[in-house]
């Protein structure tokens, strides 16, 4: 990169506030008919013209896979890219719990409106009402679509679909396929995608990584990729570009994301002008297997459903180093049940995570590192009998034992929170279009639907809603209403984008320092976890904002990337991703610093109620913060999207 | 015993034919044109193998039952051999049924070996490199892993067996239709090495049947989650019964029981 060594000494945190950003695509009026009216307002593309229109999709998870397949079916020429060796491996596959849909098959009072209401409230009033309502409407179609594809959802003896309640919701609206719902839904989308590849409407580029966005005349017109096997840098041009490249949890190094998950596609778009919204909204999942040592490369999630029967506790006494089974019941602190008697062990994710952190901060944490709490099934086994517990959680217990070597039937599990999902992402309007015309963003990569906190079983719903139903409808409007002349291969913008990728690759390879990419990534992750993790304070964030640029500079001077660019080079791939994580990390800390309130996954130490709960500040922060890039290490510009709550009126969440 | 022999006469010829056809067959077979024309589907080849195997197995059962006539005395065995030749007379000519069986068996043997050769060649190119860390063995899969070499050994044995007890060429007695005398001379205690060879060959057949029967049932789609174990047990028991039945005759002769 040309600006690799030249960061101007402007104070990064001295950001300016620019013009508000406004969602112009979303209709006003009654919320129930907004989506219908928007769909009618979309200009249609003549079916014959679709064949000559090219769309690039980056990412092949639920959102990208579903969008590729659907756009292919519609007749567009689609090129789909993924870094994995097959689109079927996208990390959507790892989602365990389930997918919400307002089917009300249980007759338990569910409805589109209730799902809408729960999601806005669960998101702590930082999501856009129109988008969330549309999501709730579409949730029903998703289940129909997936069943038609042959997704083997769990069923009851009568042959109809089974549902369960999930994540502290009072209705039973979560459809599931054992603990592998993400896998089964992704395979459905993957199969639909493979069908289109066979039909010739979609061209698949596996093991290709997007490294730059091509913007011509202010419009997104293509991408620059690197073939991860040959190392060849290629340009791909199109009429529109869809990013469905997932979240950025790996900025923390340790997370439940796959090792390859990265922010590069989104970040490159951000650098080219797309606003990045609410980057500090990260979800920390309470039930993960604790870190076992410095070698740890990733964290494994244990399904949230474990909290239905497991009881969370730590020793009451400080420095109690007895084994868990030797500690009598009255010397155990069942801290969730104690603090939140109404919800007990079933409080939402952010609250459970923070409570665990608190007891560990008090040095009452368990396990070798002291960073863990017990999740105990002793009572459940006595009450229900071991066979019943085995039937419900057998596979999870096995997984736990495989990883830790401990038998959870005999010794309580140890769990600790881990970074799981990022609610923030590229800013999009109601059409899922970013601030760069022609650049659409779907799934976890965008910011739109979950606000400051995502409810369980909603990520799958959003990815598929965007991919199958929203994007294929709205993208046509852009294509129909814009006169898009073909971009020549040697247009200056194309050559420039390509050159910048070449330069960056060359720079990374030529530094030849003394530290590996992973060592930088680990250190960055530790900074983020310490200062921008479960609890953030002004002091900590300012410290992080000092540490990150320092480390970034060291990275660009001292990283060691072996090998060449013209081969499969996994160190080089990682180096490029970590380089972008550095810049994102800085923005996340700034966003967290500026948002001096606690909401959802963002907890500011300075903003709590007298009894230590999160205190939201709707008057000052009732907006989505969309940041504009101005240069590496330079203060970005904040654009606010004011959020209006016409239907669900903000209240303080309480689980006491 | 002699009932086998004529058939395997044919069979020898057939085996020879296959061998001689091998080189011209090799080209239209698996390697060369497979890229251009669609290959003969592997599953279809497996059906051929399963169905031909089924005929061969049925024959083995009848053969074994016939062999056991020796325990009713020499005349019983010889009479049985003669009866086979006059079976269904005069509706069919002398040895008519026998020749019909021989033809069916010959076709089965050709089909069995042909499909085996094609599938083996495909397997070679589908799995060209061996693991340096050793090829891990699936528990109880010895029979499965020895199907190919076992098959070759059985084929060679059959050639010997035909020359021995059908044509009588290699038999110390070697008189047509004197079945009992031929057998008695063959497995005389002094010729213990012949008995030993037969024992080894029959065990090879047993192993082949053990995996072959289960495999054939699976190929024909008879297996499912519930039936898998019972079918495997059935195949193993079947193979043991067949092996014991065939071993009984040579061992009985050698140890002077009959």
């Amino acid at each position, binding site marked *: 990169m040309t600006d690799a060594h030249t960061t101007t000494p402007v104070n990064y945190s001295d950001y300016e506030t620019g013009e508000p950003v406004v969602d112009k695509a979303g209709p006003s009026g009654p919320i129930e008919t907004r989506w219908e009216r928007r769909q009618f307002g979309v200009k249609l593309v003549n079916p014959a013209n679709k064949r000559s229109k090219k769309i690039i999709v980056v990412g092949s998870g639920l959102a990208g896979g579903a969008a590729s397949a659907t756009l292919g079916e519609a007749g567009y020429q689609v090129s789909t890219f993924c870094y994995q*060796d097959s689109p079927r491996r996208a990390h959507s596959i790892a989602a365990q719990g389930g997918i919400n849909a307002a089917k009300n098959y249980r007759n338990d009072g569910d409805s589109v409106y209730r799902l809408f209401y729960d999601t806005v409230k669960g998101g702590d009033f930082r999501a856009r009402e129109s988008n969330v309502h549309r999501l709730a409407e579409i949730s029903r179609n998703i289940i129909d679509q997936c069943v038609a594809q042959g997704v083997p959802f*769990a069923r009851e003896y009568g*042959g109809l679909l089974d549902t369960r309640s999930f994540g502290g919701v009072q209705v039973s609206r979560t459809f599931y396929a054992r603990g592998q719902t993400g896998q089964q839904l992704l395979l459905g989308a993957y199969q639909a995608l493979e069908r289109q590849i066979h039909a010739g409407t979609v061209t698949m580029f596996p093991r290709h990584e997007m490294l730059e966005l091509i913007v011509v005349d202010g419009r997104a017109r293509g991408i620059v990729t690197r073939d991860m096997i040959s190392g060849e840098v290629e340009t791909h041009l199109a009429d529109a570009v869809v990013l469905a490249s997932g979240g950025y949890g790996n900025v923390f190094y340790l997370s439940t994301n796959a090792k390859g998950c990265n922010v590069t596609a989104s970040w490159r778009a951000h650098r080219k002008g797309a606003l990045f919204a609410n980057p500090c909204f990260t979800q920390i999942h309470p039930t993960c297997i604790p870190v076992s040592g410095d070698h740890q490369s990733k964290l494994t999630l244990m399904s949230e459903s474990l909290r239905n029967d497991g009881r969370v506790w730590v020793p009451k006494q400080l420095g109690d180093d007895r084994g868990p089974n030797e500690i009598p019941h009255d010397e155990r602190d069942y801290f969730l049940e104690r603090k939140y008697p109404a919800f007990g062990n079933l409080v939402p994710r952010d609250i459970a995570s923070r409570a665990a952190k608190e007891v560990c901060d008090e040095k009452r944490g368990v396990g070798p590192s002291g960073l863990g709490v017990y999740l105990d099934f002793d009572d459940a086994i006595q009450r229900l009998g071991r066979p019943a517990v085995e039937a419900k959680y057998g596979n999870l217990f096995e997984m736990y034992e495989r990883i830790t070597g401990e038998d959870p039937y005999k010794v309580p599990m140890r769990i600790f929170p881990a970074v799981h999902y990022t609610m923030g992402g590229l800013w999009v309007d109601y059409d899922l279009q970013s601030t760069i015309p022609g650049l659409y963003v779907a799934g976890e990569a965008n910011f739109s639907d979950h606000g400051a906190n995502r409810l369980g079983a909603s990520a799958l719903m959003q990815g598929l809603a965007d991919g199958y139903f929203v994007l294929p409808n709205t993208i046509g409007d852009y294509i129909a209403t814009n006169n898009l002349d073909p971009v020549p291969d040697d247009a200056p913008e194309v050559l420039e984008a390509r050159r910048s990728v070449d330069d960056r690759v060359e720079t990374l390879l030529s530094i030849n320092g003394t530290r590996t990419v992973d060592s930088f990534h680990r250190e960055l992750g530790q900074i983020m976890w310490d200062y921008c993790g479960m609890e953030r304070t002004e002091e900590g964030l300012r410290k992080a904002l000092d540490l990150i640029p320092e480390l970034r500079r060291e990275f660009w001077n001292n990283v060691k990337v072996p090998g060449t660019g013209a081969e499969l080079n996994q160190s080089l791939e990682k180096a490029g991703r970590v380089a972008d994580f550095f810049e994102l990390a800085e923005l996340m800390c700034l966003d967290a610093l500026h948002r001096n309130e606690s909401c959802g996954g963002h907890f500011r130490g300075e903003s709590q109620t007298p009894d230590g709960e999160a205190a939201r500040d709707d008057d000052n922060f009732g907006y989505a913060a969309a940041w504009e890039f101005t240069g590496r290490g330079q203060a970005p510009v904040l654009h606010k999207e004011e959020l209006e709550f016409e239907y669900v009126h903000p209240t303080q969440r309480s689980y006491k | 015993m002699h009932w086998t022999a004529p058939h395997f006469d044919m069979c020898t010829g057939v085996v020879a034919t296959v061998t001689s056809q091998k080189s011209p067959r090799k080209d239209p077979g698996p390697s060369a044109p497979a890229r251009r024309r669609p290959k003969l589907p592997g599953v279809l080849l497996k059906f051929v193998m399963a169905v031909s195997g089924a005929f061969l197995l049925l024959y083995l059962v009848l053969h074994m039952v016939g062999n056991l006539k020796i325990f009713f005395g020499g005349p019983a065995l010889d009479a049985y051999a003669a009866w086979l030749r006059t079976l269904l007379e005069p509706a069919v000519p002398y040895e008519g049924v026998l020749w019909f069986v021989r033809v069916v068996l010959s076709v089965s043997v050709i089909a069995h070996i042909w499909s085996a050769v094609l599938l083996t060649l495909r397997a070679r190119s589908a799995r060209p490199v061996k693991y340096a860390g050793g090829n891990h063995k699936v528990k109880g899969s010895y029979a499965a892993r020895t199907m190919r070499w076992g098959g070759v050994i059985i084929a060679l044995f059959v050639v010997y067996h035909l020359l021995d007890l059908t044509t009588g060429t290699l038999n110390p007695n070697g008189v047509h239709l004197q079945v009992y005398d031929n057998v008695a001379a063959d497995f005389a205690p002094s010729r213990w090495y012949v008995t030993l060879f037969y024992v080894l060959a029959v065990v090879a057949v047993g192993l082949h049947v053990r995996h072959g029967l289960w495999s054939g049932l699976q190929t024909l789609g008879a297996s499912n989650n519930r039936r898998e174990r019972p079918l495997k047990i059935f195949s193993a028991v079947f193979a043991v019964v067949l092996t014991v039945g065939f071993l009984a005759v040579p061992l009985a002769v050698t140890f002077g029981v009959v």
Partner: protein
Amino acid sequence: MKLNLKVWRQRDSVDKGRMVNYEVDADEDMSFLEMLDVLNEKLILAGDEPVAFDHDCREGICGACSMVIDGQPHGPQKATTTCQLHMRHYSDGDSIVVEPFRAGAFPVIKDLVVDRGAFDKVIQAGGYVSVNTGSAPDAHATPVSKVAADRSFAAANCIGCGACVAACPNGSASLFLGAKLTHLGEMPQGQPERYERVVNMVETHDDAGFGGCTNTGACATACPKEIPLDVISQLNRDYLKATVAGRRNRG
């Protein structure tokens, strides 16, 4: 613990490749891949090239990891992918041989990385229900018996890692193929294309260079998701019905 590793090193698809010995210090809580991470960090700092291997989710579901450990795909632990295999199953001084999946249809790209694109081709040939987005009836329009749904799920559990092919002495992908055919074949939604599907997928399977099945069961033993062997029986049965019984043309 100190381990002696013998790792297959191959620069690219053209290189002949060879086994190289390494020593590595491992901790018993590490996963097998974390042990390789440690090796790679060491190699990079020593100025060598790290060992390339496929991996992604590291929680046993994406199916990316693909290596043969001491002759067994995914190593010695039953029902466990390489990423979930932990070093506590090894002890100080052990020697471990690590190789790529070996199959004609899975050419080696580099070191332990192989190309499993043939699996995608097999799915393209018919491993789906031909339903366009938006054309679906209500999810409850077609009840599916719990037994069928469960059996379908057991087969749909396949993660497409290719261990079945790597373990098979014939390099056959019958377990992978049978799993997809069973997944769709057990569901009413999969019925209209059922017989067309099996014929096309089998043809593509063979053309991709996979061998024929000899029912050794090595695939089901190696499968980290314990896909039952009887899916191959179902594949055979459907193929027989499609071709010999002529169902394919009758639909």
